């Protein structure tokens, strides 16, 4: 045992030394002397932004010669696979995840910690980034992730649908709801036949927890209490939100069915007012939908906007491979340098601050709106149990949405289930 340990130590030292030398600015020259590694990269960008990521990866390979085996898996399946594959030593070299996944993955040892000085050496500095995105990658004092961009919610309005409902002003601009009551009234005006007035979420609006969380935060409520130990979903503020959740579908019937595809409905002119992720708007433009955007309206107490930065992480490898790790760093560096393109084509605001003053970005009305929402961004609570709580939440809010369960009882039951989660 001891002898093996020393052997490994020595090897590790030599590798680290080699790695340190390789990370000097002489990188490009040295790298071209070695055969280029191929790294595996998992993400959940299964929508239109996935194709943009493909283009950028191709360009990266052309520029550096490093090949990337990208695998796109729908987010929910991706996280399950990460959790299962890393302990088996079969995880990817690089993974793009949501900020809120960092606490539990870090806690479970799925992610490898990132040395801050290494990050700085690679050009990743705190000052360059929006503070909330930079902080999101840290858990219990250690860094595990570096941010890429900031997906967030936005209010979409289908101009054609609203015009038919008489909700478009003489200036051609659709009326924007300023309160819950106004929204419901407008939605009722729009809802007719198989056209619906208002929905939250891209697909499966019944169990769209991100939308539910957005509303919770607007009302000053949250999943956990401030101590991050007890569930706070049985509080009156949370129940009020749950009641609204059920009201839009079960009661007022202005929202799409629980398993509908809201994006398709919006494109097909079957949905008028839509709160959904910013990642949808480039696809809407491609589909030539006549739509307008506006900041997420203040439906409760504060105009909070749900936001969830994407973060690059290094899943714990079976054995340290410096060539692959450097290749992953190179990719992260490259895409951060080209993030303005990512913003323009995929519609995601960057976590880096510099591109925000790029005239191409400030000239785009939608991107401008997204940037303007920054003061109102809020994300999930940094507890390892957040995701498990979210998994429990989905069927419960769905049952409220379809009117199967009354809001108060459902929230109390959910709080009980969340409190019963093992550590």
């Amino acid at each position, binding site marked *: 045992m001891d002898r093996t340990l020393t052997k490994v130590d020595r090897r590790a030292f030599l590798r680290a030394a080699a790695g340190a030398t390789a990370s000097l600015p002489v990188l490009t020259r040295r790298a071209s002397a070695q055969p280029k590694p191929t790294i595996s990269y998992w993400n959940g960008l299964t*929508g239109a932004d996935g194709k943009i990521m493909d283009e950028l990866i191709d360009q990266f390979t052309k520029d550096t010669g490093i090949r990337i085996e990208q*695998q796109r898996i729908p987010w929910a399946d991706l996280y399950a696979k990460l959790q*299962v594959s890393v302990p088996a030593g*079969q995880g990817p070299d690089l993974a793009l995840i949501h900020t809120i996944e960092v606490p539990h993955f870090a806690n479970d040892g799925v992610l490898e910690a990132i040395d801050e000085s290494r990050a700085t050496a690679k050009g990743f500095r705190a000052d360059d980034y929006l503070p909330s995105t930079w902080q999101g990658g840290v858990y219990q004092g250690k860094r595990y992730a570096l941010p890429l961009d900031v997906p967030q919610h936005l209010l979409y309005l289908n101009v054609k649908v609203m015009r038919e409902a008489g909700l478009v002003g003489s200036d051609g601009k659709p009326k924007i709801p300023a309160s819950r009551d106004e929204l419901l009234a407008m939605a009722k005006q729009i809802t007719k036949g198989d056209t619906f007035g208002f929905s939250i979420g891209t697909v499966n609006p019944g169990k769209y927890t991100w939308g539910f969380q957005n509303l919770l935060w607007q009302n000053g409520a949250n999943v956990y209490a401030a101590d991050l130990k007890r569930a706070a979903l049985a509080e009156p503020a949370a129940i009020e939100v749950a009641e609204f959740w059920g009201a839009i579908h079960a009661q007022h019937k202005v929202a799409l069915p629980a398993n509908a595809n809201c994006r398709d409905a919006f494109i097909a002119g079957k949905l008028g007012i839509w709160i959904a992720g910013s990642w949808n708007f480039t*696809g809407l433009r491609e589909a030539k939908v006549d739509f307008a955007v506006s900041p997420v309206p203040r439906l409760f107490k504060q105009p909070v906007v749900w936001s969830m930065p994407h973060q690059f992480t290094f899943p714990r490898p079976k054995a340290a491979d410096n060539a692959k790790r450097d290749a992953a760093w190179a990719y992260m560096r490259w895409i951060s340098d080209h993030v303005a393109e990512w913003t323009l084509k995929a519609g995601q605001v960057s976590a880096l601050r510099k591109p925000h003053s790029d005239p191409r970005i400030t000239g785009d009305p939608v991107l401008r709106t997204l940037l303007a929402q920054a003061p109102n961004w809020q994300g999930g609570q940094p507890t390892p149990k957040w995701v498990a709580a979210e998994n429990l939440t989905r069927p419960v809010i769905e049952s409220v949405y379809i009117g199967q369960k009354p809001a108060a009882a459902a929230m109390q039951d959910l709080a009980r289930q969340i409190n019963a989660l093992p550590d």
Partner: protein
Amino acid sequence: MVGFAILWLLPAVWVLVTSLKLTENIIRVPPEWIPWPATLVHYGEVLFSSSRTARIGRAFVNSAIVSVGTVALVVLTSAMAAYPLARMRFRGRNVIFALLVGSLMIPNAVVLVPQYILTHRLGWLSTYQGLIVPEAAMTFAFGVFLLRQFFLTMPAELEDAARIDGAGPWRIFTRILLPLSQPALGALAIFAFRSAWNDFLWPLIAVNKPEMFPLPVALALLRGAYSSESYGPIMAGATLSALPLLVVFLLANRRIIEGARVSGLKG
């Protein structure tokens, strides 16, 4: 009746038709049954993975390797086990047979978690053997049951004659029993092939490397966030995944139905 049969097939036709439509026509209402203009772009995307979402081409190969491997392993082990159970007397024969028959009642879900742990410990996660061996183990008891029934119906005279000629059990097994058992072996092979080809739950958890996914898992993970963009490739993938069994079915129509019949009636 014919009308009903056509109605019955309509869902499958709808899948085929959707796979040939241009993306913007897929979510058109009223539904169009003739894909015009027709396109093979979804098939290209799904096979040559220019979109990198799911390597159906590779998944195809994986499914083929796993299915063939499973069939080989099951047929071999089942036949070898059924022979003594049908034709020899020895201690423990009844107990072993009872155990095997009893095991037919074990739902696969019961062994899922421990089987996962075992496969992990053997280092077989995301490997072909990690799929073939458990799958074969699942079908083994049924195979023994089926083949034993069949062996029992074979006349003993042939074996007696061979024995008199000095043939040992192995020779009798390989030279006489097996060649005469082709119908039953064929039925078992087709049953095992279908079972392995379509297995979903086990590969879903036992394979972590995307390039090792078999077809059903690759198809299931094609369900992306946005239906109008994924359904073209999903339907193309579904059509492709149905092709091998469809071909086998058309070619071996009788044999398959015979197999279903045999598996049913002797049960």
